[in-house]
């Protein structure tokens, strides 16, 4: 069993973190459907699932003729009233059918795409992780981007941000394997694109999406903080005041760092692997400490100057 997914993460276009009820309102994207929210340790609100139909080629490597028919499931997530994510996924199921069935067959299986043709799971995984998208193949990125644009354009937001950050995109696959320890492989392709491969036991396949969303969030936070440090250093090099950007980052981003807090217990060991290499939290803590040092040193010298 194989799941293909993509998560796009960006700062919510609002000057302040959005309160809990406003977030629920923001993510009420389908009339009558409920938004789900957890408040501890930090608010994480998820929109109702949106579903769209697809019938197209499936990317593979080497390229084999394969057709996918079914539905893509997607939802939007807001964490801490501050970070917006759009997450789309399909679970692939191989079928011996040669033709498309009546739509009801696909419509009642949300987020399942049936694969027609002689392509193997390995070929599909290799095709999905290739940089760039093969023409006319399934486009989860576009589904995410439309959803994110929809959320970011909603009237509940004031469309101003207190921090300059870049959206990131994480393309992931999860494979179910019996009798195998959960494992994870994260690859940073470039400034905005990441690739993630997860292996989990079959009963935990459904939880993989949430782990990937959590990882995408933290990777984005890590990237955003790295950019803040870079900008502060540039500011200091030219004698400009870095306090504004440091304060904004410290007050907005730091409290969101909670790797694995919303992930199923059984999948938290995956985080442990990432904590060993590249050592996410250790590195994050060091950056935060550096930022706090800068702020306190500057506050101190400002106080001393004021006394003279």
């Amino acid at each position: 069993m194989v799941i293909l997914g993509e998560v796009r993460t960006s700062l919510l276009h609002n000057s302040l973190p959005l309160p809990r009820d406003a977030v629920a309102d923001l993510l009420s994207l389908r009339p009558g459907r409920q938004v789900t929210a957890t408040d501890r340790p930090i608010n994480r609100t998820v929109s109702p699932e949106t579903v769209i139909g697809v019938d197209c080629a499936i990317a593979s490597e080497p390229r084999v003729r394969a057709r996918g028919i079914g539905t893509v499931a997607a939802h939007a997530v807001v964490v801490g009233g501050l970070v917006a994510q759009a997450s789309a996924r399909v679970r692939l199921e191989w079928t011996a059918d040669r033709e498309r069935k009546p739509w009801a067959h696909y419509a009642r299986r949300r987020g399942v795409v049936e694969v027609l043709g002689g392509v193997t799971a390995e070929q599909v995984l290799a095709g999905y992780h290739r940089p760039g998208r093969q023409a006319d193949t399934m486009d989860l990125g576009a589904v995410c981007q439309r959803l994110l644009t929809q959320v970011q354009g909603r009237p509940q937001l004031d469309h101003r941000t207190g921090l300059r950050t870049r959206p990131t995109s994480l393309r992931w696959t999860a494979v179910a394997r019996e009798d195998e320890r959960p494992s994870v492989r994260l690859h940073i392709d470039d400034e905005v694109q990441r690739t993630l491969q997860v292996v989990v036991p079959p009963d935990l396949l459904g939880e993989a999406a949430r782990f990937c969303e959590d990882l995408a969030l933290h990777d984005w936070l890590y990237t955003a903080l790295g950019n803040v440090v870079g900008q502060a250093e540039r500011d200091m090099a030219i004698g400009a005041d870095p306090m504004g950007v440091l304060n904004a980052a410290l007050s907005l981003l730091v409290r969101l760092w909670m790797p694995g807090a919303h992930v199923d217990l059984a999948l938290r060991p995956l985080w442990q692997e990432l904590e060993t290499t590249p050592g996410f939290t250790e590195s994050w803590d060091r950056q935060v400490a550096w930022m706090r040092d800068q702020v306190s040193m500057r506050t101190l010298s400002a106080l001393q100057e004021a006394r003279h």
Partner: protein
Amino acid sequence: MSSLDTPVYTEATAKPEPRQVALSHLSVEVGHLYMEDLLGGEERIRTQFRRVAPWLTAVRQAQAVELGGVKPRISTCFLIDDYFRPDTDPSVIVPQLLDIAAECGIQIDYLAREAGCHEAERVPLAEVTAAMLLPEPPVGTTGSRPPVQDSGWLCNGERSPDNTGRQAMMPAVAWAPAEEFGKRNHSIFLDVELWKDQTVTVDGVRRVERKWSCPFLAAVWQLVRLGQLRYAGEPVAQPQPWSGSWPRHWRDLPAVVQLSERPQPFSAYRTASILPKTYLKIEHAVTVILDHLDLDDAVVAQTARRAEAEGLRLPAQLTDRVAHVFIEPAESRAERAW
């Protein structure tokens, strides 16, 4: 037991479970009359109910056979066509209708209003259902473009390529037939109009008003009878008892009125509709609509669990739970007499 089965910490809104509705085994719709028929004299109503009565008995028997020893829970209902004709008087129509039904041996447990399928107790049921639409993707749909929605049309396959209105210098699009997906050898392609948006002027203000089509409201009607609709997890269009005289306006009645005392629940695992054959095409359209919905999976799962707990066999596909009996329409006997 693993740690997954006994969560240490849970929150109220983390996993909203939809509220349950009481379910019969079967909801039977005992005929349907256009408002013109209801206004067209007692004889038309009587003719239809006389034709419905033996089929109602047959449907009850069929349900008993299906359940094998278990006492069937069956409720009956009748839908009033007040969405397209709100200008009629329930205080005249309802008593006459109920008297004739009783005279023909048909007890109507619930009377429902078609306008209630548009909006029931201020819950916009039609809009909620429209938000569940999951149209067929034409071959080649990758997700790159937004799905074509809001056209107000839904089909069961792929439309014939557009060959009209092309510019003089543009190459002609080769004609190809429309195709039904999942067809058996040959296509029976159906394209259903779900709604029509009209610009109306009310008190000098122009606004767009959506007029829902009869098949679309009939699809909502099936969903309500099958107990599949919720609004923010809450049941909708729940039957309300009515005592006293009938009002002059349909809008003063609840969406679903409970008529009999202690009837079996209004919603049911399955529905059967005994209708004049003139409704065949509408019900075909209803089937297409129901086959193109992204239903609330929590409600679907809940219904399946309850059926299993009762030891009932319940088809996974919603439209397989919907049965019809088509009877001779009211007019044809009169026509033959001529």
